């Protein structure tokens, strides 16, 4: 008998996992708001607006990283165009924020300022209904989803994979960036969408709004991880990893990889769209440079630094890379590209499983040493001719971190 999905979901994470999630959620929804709103600025535990915005931004990136890990770490598909889906989500929701400005823009018109600038009289058809919060939220998922579905269908159907697929996704996001840079396409051109004022009627810069957005980002990240965990633990996940490791053999057994790849690809794009929708109100701007080729490749390095094929790794990766980016670009801006470039090279050369893999390796070595010492002690105590017990491989991590690539 099949266990219901909900039961498997709970079981898949284990009590420790759920406890961790509850703790993180508590900190995000209670601890951070209290520290930001209640504590005076001089207090050592006070969380500044800057910190909340930065963390919120990184949390959105972390969602993208987990979504990327789902397709790359588990599906073996390296996308160099995930920035596109992120930006599409951002643009969809950004339009809602543009509409919320209402008549408070510099021109006092009912349509966004950049359209007045283009001398447009009304909204173009594709922005119809964007004054509705729910519709825009739906758009933020549906637009990346539909584009990913169509693109993925044609790409996977003809079995484009490996570097071919990566380069074509890169070309896709590059073409989209050029398209969004144009003024007459109705996406705000160079400047994109900015100068937001309100969200659902609340001021977008109010500390309370920021705290809520931050909490939502944490929640989205947790939900993504839980969903990913459930997917990977399911039969679907097993077939997916099998496709990653030996696509032809999976086909010979009788599975059609198209459905599996297409599903995880589309899901990943939609998650990116949602992350983009949460990113825009916190950062306050969305413009075509989000779709630049370099940005999309950076997403891959977050995942690689954290550890592919683990769901928690990308979260760390996104955090590490983006915090160092913030630090470098303020302290030694001219060395940031050197650092990033070396990170790309060194991580791929020496840390194929990222920091999580490094952690697992250190733990394994420690266990090995302990076992060795124990064996020596027992040999000394009783001269039995048994070999030292096999070093214990920690559950999960090392086993799931398969070869990939």
């Amino acid at each position, binding site marked *: 008998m099949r266990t219901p999905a909900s039961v498997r979901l709970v079981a898949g994470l284990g009590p420790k996992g759920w406890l961790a999630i509850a703790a993180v959620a508590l900190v995000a929804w209670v601890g951070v708001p209290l520290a930001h709103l209640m504590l005076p600025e001089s207090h050592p535990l006070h969380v500044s607006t800057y910190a909340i915005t930065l963390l919120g931004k990184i949390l959105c990136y972390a969602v993208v990283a987990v979504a990327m890990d789902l397709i*790359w770490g588990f599906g073996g598909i*390296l996308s*160099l165009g995930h920035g596109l889906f992120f930006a599409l989500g951002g643009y969809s929701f950004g339009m809602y924020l543009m509409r919320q400005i209402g008549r408070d823009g510099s021109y006092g018109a009912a349509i966004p300022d950049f359209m007045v600038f283009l001398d447009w009289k009304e909204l173009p058809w594709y922005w119809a209904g964007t004054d509705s919060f729910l519709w825009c939220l739906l758009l933020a998922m549906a637009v990346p989803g539909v584009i990913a579905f169509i*693109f993925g269908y*044609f*790409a996977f*159907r*003809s*079995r*484009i994979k*490996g*570097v*071919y697929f*990566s*380069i*074509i996704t*890169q*070309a*896709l996001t*590059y*073409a989209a960036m*050029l*398209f969004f*840079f*144009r003024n007459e396409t109705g996406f705000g051109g160079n400047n994109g969408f900015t100068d937001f004022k309100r969200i659902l009627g609340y001021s977008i810069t109010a500390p309370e709004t920021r705290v809520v957005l931050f909490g939502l980002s944490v929640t989205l990240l947790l939900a993504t991880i839980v969903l990913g965990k459930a997917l990977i633990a399911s039969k679907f996940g097993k077939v997916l990893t099998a496709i990653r490791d030996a696509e*032809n053999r999976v086909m010979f057994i009788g599975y059609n990889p198209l459905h599996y790849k297409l599903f995880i690809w589309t899901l990943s794009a939609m998650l990116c769209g949602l992350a983009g929708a949460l990113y825009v109100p916190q950062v306050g701007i969305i413009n075509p440079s989000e779709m630049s*080729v370099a940005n999309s*490749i950076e997403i*891959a*390095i977050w995942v*690689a630094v954290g550890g592919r094929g683990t769901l928690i790794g990308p979260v760390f990766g996104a955090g590490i890379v983006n915090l160092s980016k913030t630090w470098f670009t303020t302290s030694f801006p*001219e*060395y940031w*590209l*050197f650092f*990033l*470039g*070396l*990170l*790309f*090279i060194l*991580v*791929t*050369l020496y840390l*194929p499983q990222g920091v999580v893999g490094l952690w697992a390796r250190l733990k394994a070595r420690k266990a090995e040493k302990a076992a060795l010492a124990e064996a020596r002690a027992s040999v000394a105590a009783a001269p039995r001719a048994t070999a030292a017990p096999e070093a214990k491989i920690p559950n999960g991590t090392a086993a799931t971190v398969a070869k990939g*690539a």
Partner: protein
Amino acid sequence: MKRIFLLLSLVLGLWAGSAGAALDPAILKGLASDDFDAKQAAVAGLAAAGDDADAQRLLKALSDDAVAVAGERVVIVAGDQVLDAASGAAIKPAPANSESISLNNSLRQQVDGALAALRLFSTDTAERLAAARLLLADMGDGAVLLPLLDKALAHEQDPVIKDILVRLHAQASLGSPDAAVRLKAVQELGESASPAVKALLLGLLDKQGDDFAEPDEKVRLAAQTAIKAIDGRLAWSDTAGQIFTGISLGSILLLAALGLAITYGVMGVINMAHGELLMVGAYSAYAMQALFRARFPEFVDYYLLAAVPVAFFVAAAVGMAMERTVIRHLYGRPLETLLATWGLSLVLIQAARLLFGAQNVEVANPAWMSGGVQLADNLSLPWNRLVIVAFSGFVLLVVWLMMNKTRLGMFVRAVTQNRPMAGCVGVPTARIDTLAFGIGSGIAGLGGVALSQIANVGPDMGQGYIVDSFMVVVLGGVGQLAGAVWAALGLGIVTKFLEGWAGAVIAKILVLVFIIIFIQKRPQGLFALKGRFVD
């Protein structure tokens, strides 16, 4: 209009009386006056004097700002001497105080036009041709030159110059007050195939308020017919021009893609730093230019010839170092190679920024590469692009010879087709990898030299090329030179035509869509290797 009448009457009047005698005092008086209209009339008079030596000398002096008024006399100041404008005789003693005659822009244009028109009477055919071309580019007020052109037409024997003169004459007649003259001019201009003439005729149809620029209905109709006729003649040379720019883009793509095709073919990895190797090549050209300027200024026009081998070896060295230190260790992990080489590209970009600055640097075309071959009025093939097309043909030939006629090439092909088997029969695959990578990178360096002649040279110039050159490799199929050639030229020409038709962005998107559809049909590229390729 009224002013032109005035000028014409003056010019025609002078025309009759100017022969033989020294300059008309009325002209000099006009020049000395403060009124620009009077000055204009005076210059027109000088122009009409035709091949009169005094008039030419005065015009030349006007153009050099060397004419002054001393008391009642108009004089030419030439160094220490002061000459009388009318006779050219030196005045002794030089008048104490003189005030130079100032020209405004339109007057200066007119003086230059008149000078050029006077050169139409030179005995040297080349100079007459140059003068006619000069007038074609910028005639100024045509009506003033009309009598001169009439005279020149009567004299001219050379058919080429005569053609130009006919057109000039027609252009000048457009300003005529007589509708019949204008009509005849428009009909004559309809014989041309020049975009400039088309613009001129379009100008007649412009509306200023409620009135057309050309008041006569019949002339307007004739202009419309003439424009249609010109359009028809322009169409083919436009197409030829687009094909040429397409081929020129294609040859750049080919240089970028040839190297990538070799490295991708041999090792199955995409080198994301390939575009940066182009950049290395371009900066090598820049460095050679700087070296030649500093050390061998007399040979500076030949720096490019020196840059070719230098760029090849510098880029090849960078590529081989990359292969030895990074790519070799990622063998069998193509996606991670993608990321690692991207990291390399970031490092190279930043290194270039620190070494040469973040701004674009200036790499000049050598003198022998500037200018172009004028095939038609709207079709000129610039020398730098022609040289690049020829250069990429040369590189292609060398690569073909190397791949097909040398032992190294045979090894490279063997590793491309079947690495384990090649290893089994004694091909040193690891060394071939390094060498092939070096050669591919070196070719990219050559592409960079070519690119430095037509594009900006800056630290991130190579970023845009990786996708395009990979598309060429995808289209052409791996390990096939012929495939790469057809794919590069085809992609170049198609892109240029689409750009002309739909703009650069849409063209980019359409090309991408086309390639995705193409891969649906032929996943192995245009020219697939025969054999079994299943992973």
